[in-house]
């Protein structure tokens, strides 16, 4: 398939998203204007998604080292040591735009993508968590967001359930600013023997590049299609799918095949194909190994005949992996592909040319210096400017909250509000138990708990309150990290490492640049303070539409270690007569709270300051108490404040409570970091005052939540309010 096409012009380059200056730099690196194949490949590798043009400099400020870190940012996933010769690999990644176009397939392929990142480093995926953001879902205006929610949840379940990886946790928020830009982030964890970890650096001149998994179609060619040599007829045009269909069955075979190839020591290195397909995988492997690669597109198994070389190189078809093997092992490698019923083909070789050479049936159709492709994309400085006033419109007044509502009415309104109600209708569509490792499932504890061989366990949590980050990017990001750590503390886990997904608007706008800079500053500071270094993550920018940017949403995923899985904490009250205490340096405020949102109040400019060290100390005290097994339950105070936390403890345990609490709104529904609702022997709770502040509120018992002189609500009424989300799924 020779490509005797007129070379693309600068206008092609611009329509592919490159700037004029970038195009000229490419011409300089190439020594001549790039041809069709070369321009297609540059335009992808020099895109924001692959090159991190607007975020790389910021990311360098994040703490990435610590005693537990085995693999930091730079590989497909990060990894931390979890003892017993094992490491936990984990990473969060976004699939926001595809999910906005087609939520089911977009979310499904998002899960497929993050799972490939995990087994690309030789770890067996053991869990998925999801972090979702949509517009408001109530009423007529909510129709589209409900459709997106339904589709995304079904898609995540479809992929995770079918491939046999449990979905053990997640979070979902509904806020106006996500109306035009929903967020679908997925996090995955994997386990591997420390020695078994594999990197993606290509090595060994003369070794073979083997592509295995699904065949290659015209998926995700989208933009690059302006380069098509022949103008496509209408009919051919829709040979270019706008949506990629995920095939969890194919990926299950790919996963088992990859792990067996590694177990048998047949691979020199391994890399998944994600964004930018072969282009980025081959270039990254060459770059990391400081070698060259040569690929003949004619050897790539195709789903569609007559694909052009550039189409093969940029195709984003799912469920594919690229590996480097020694020539002598090729036969065995292909035999294993046979066994697992996946395609396998040697498509090229590792060279010492320092270039990526693309051939079509032996004929050279493109050649680029690896450095130019991977390292020489210009990085841009952000120009942050704090906006003079709050850029987000006030949320709509919630009909659920009548003016001057009583505390009872306010609590029920909060408990039934979309951001607080039970997520059961969602997580019931996920399999949380396959692989027989799940010690704590959703709604049993604040963090998911996964058993490790030998009796220890992992705790994992994913969180971010975008509205609070919007009110104060710096403190809000710190709070999101603390929220994850608090969830871990409640199950008795000590943080080992953190991953993050920076979902923001257009970084070229000064106020978004400010949000991003402030949030990353807070993120780094909190991770340093907790000694939970960042081992990986992802960035998703330009999430904004006609109605403005999304809330700044730095989604945080944190993994921690429990010493004894049999002592994993629970959130539900467990024993009548137990004392209940509010523990920690908790200073409740209505600023940016759920109650303010329901009231349709505008976001404040800034959040109340707090003592990071005091919060960390409280978390440590709670963690040690859970580990010592002296608590019956532990739950951190978050959306909706202490009153909601108490209601959640009652509902999870099926037990009431009698407590004393000031009747003022801030005390009942105010939010902020550092607060825990614990239950257990009074003495055990009071003993915590050595490390942090403790206020005994009352006792567990009865079948209603009773705040003396303030409110009394039966478990039944609480449960009814808490179940409100179910209606959306009828």
């Amino acid at each position, binding site marked *: 398939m020779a490509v005797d096409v007129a070379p693309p012009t600068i206008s092609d380059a611009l329509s592919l998203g490159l700037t004029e200056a970038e195009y000229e730099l490419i011409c300089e690196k190439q020594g001549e204007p790039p041809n069709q194949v070369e321009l297609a490949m540059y335009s992808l590798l020099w895109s924001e998604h692959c090159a991190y043009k607007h975020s790389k400099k910021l990311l360098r400020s994040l703490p990435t080292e610590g005693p537990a870190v085995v693999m930091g940012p730079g590989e497909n996933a990060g990894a931390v040591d979890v003892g017993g010769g094992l490491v936990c690999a984990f990473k969060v990644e976004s699939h926001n735009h595809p999910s906005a*176009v*087609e939520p089911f*397939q977009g979310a499904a392929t998002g899960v497929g993508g993050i799972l490939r990142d995990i087994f690309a480093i030789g770890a067996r995926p053991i869990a998925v968590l999801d972090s979702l953001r949509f517009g408001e879902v109530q009423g007529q205006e909510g129709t589209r967001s409900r459709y997106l929610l339904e589709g995304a949840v079904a898609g995540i379940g479809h992929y995770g359930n079918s491939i046999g990886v449990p979905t053990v946790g997640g979070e979902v928020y509904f806020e106006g600013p996500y109306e035009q830009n929903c967020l679908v982030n997925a996090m995955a964890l994997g386990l591997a023997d420390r020695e078994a970890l594999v990197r993606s650096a290509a090595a060994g001149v003369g070794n073979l590049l083997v592509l295995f998994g*699904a065949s290659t*179609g*015209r*998926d995700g060619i989208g933009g690059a299609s302006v380069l098509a040599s022949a103008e496509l007829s209408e009919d051919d045009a*829709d*040979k*270019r*799918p*706008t*949506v*990629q*269909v995920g*095939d969890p*069955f*194919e990926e299950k075979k790919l996963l088992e095949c990859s792990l067996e190839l590694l177990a048998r020591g047949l691979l020199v290195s391994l890399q998944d194909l994600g964004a930018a397909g072969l282009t980025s995988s081959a270039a990254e492997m060459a770059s990391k190994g400081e070698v060259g690669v040569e690929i003949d597109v004619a050897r790539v198994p195709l*789903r*569609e005949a007559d694909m052009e070389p550039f189409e093969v190189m940029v195709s984003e*078809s*799912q469920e594919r992996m690229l590996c480097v093997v020694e020539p002598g092992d090729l036969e065995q490698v292909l035999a294993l592909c046979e066994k697992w*019923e996946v395609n396998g083909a040697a498509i090229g070789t590792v060279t010492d040319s320092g270039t990526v050479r693309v051939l079509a049936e032996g004929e050279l159709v493109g050649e680029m210096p690896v450095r130019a492709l991977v390292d020489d994309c210009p990085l841009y400085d952000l120009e942050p400017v704090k906006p003079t006033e709050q850029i987000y419109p006030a949320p709509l007044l919630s009909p659920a909250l009548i003016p001057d509502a009583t505390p009872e009415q306010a609590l029920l309104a909060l408990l039934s509000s979309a951001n607080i109600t039970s997520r059961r209708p969602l997580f019931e569509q996920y399999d949380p138990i396959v692989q027989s490792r799940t010690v704590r499932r959703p709604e049993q504890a604040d963090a998911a708990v996964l058993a490790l061989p030998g009796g220890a366990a992992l705790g994992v949590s994913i969180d971010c309150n975008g509205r609070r980050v919007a009110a104060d990017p710096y403190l809000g990001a710190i709070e999101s990290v603390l929220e994850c750590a608090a969830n871990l503390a409640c199950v008795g886990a000590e943080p080992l490492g953190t991953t993050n997904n920076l979902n923001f608007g257009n970084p070229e706008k000064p106020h978004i640049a400010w949000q991003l800079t402030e949030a990353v500053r807070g993120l780094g500071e909190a991770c340093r303070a907790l000694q939970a270094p960042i081992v990986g993550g992802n960035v998703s920018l330009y999430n904004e539409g006609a109605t403005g940017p999304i809330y700044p949403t730095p989604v945080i995923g944190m993994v921690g270690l429990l010493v004894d899985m049999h002592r994993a904490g629970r959130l539900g009250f467990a024993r009548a007569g137990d004392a209940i205490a509010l523990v920690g340096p908790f200073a409740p405020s209505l600023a940016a709270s759920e109650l303010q949102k329901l009231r349709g109040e505008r976001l404040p400019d800034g959040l109340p300051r707090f003592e990071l060290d005091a919060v960390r100390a409280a978390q440590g005290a709670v963690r040690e108490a859970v580990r010592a097994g002296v608590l019956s339950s532990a739950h951190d105070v978050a959306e909706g404040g202490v009153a909601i936390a108490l209601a959640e403890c009652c509902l999870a345990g099926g037990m009431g409570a009698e407590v004393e609490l000031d009747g003022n709104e801030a005390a009942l529904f105010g939010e902020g970091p550092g607060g825990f609702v614990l239950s257990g022997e009074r003495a055990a709770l009071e003993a915590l005052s050595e490390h942090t502040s403790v206020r005994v509120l009352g006792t567990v018992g009865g079948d209603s939540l009773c705040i003396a002189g303030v409110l009394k609500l039966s478990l039944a009424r609480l449960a009814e309010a808490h179940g409100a989300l179910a209606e959306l799924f009828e």
Partner: protein
Amino acid sequence: MRARVLIRPKQGILDPQGEAVKRALPALGFSGVESVHVGRLVELDVQDAAQVQPMCEKLLANPLVEDYEVQLLDGGS
């Protein structure tokens, strides 16, 4: 009147079901099957045949990933 809607994976879009069936057939002793595609079949009794097309667009098919074909059969049941 009876309407039949044939819904297929769009041309060029991955059809995992079709692939899986195709792979399975030889083992069952069926050779010479060149392509298999699995889609959905919707049959409705409608009063107004003109509504079927918009129904497909709005509900029955997902135009992003599926093509559909409407057949109007007289009679019904």
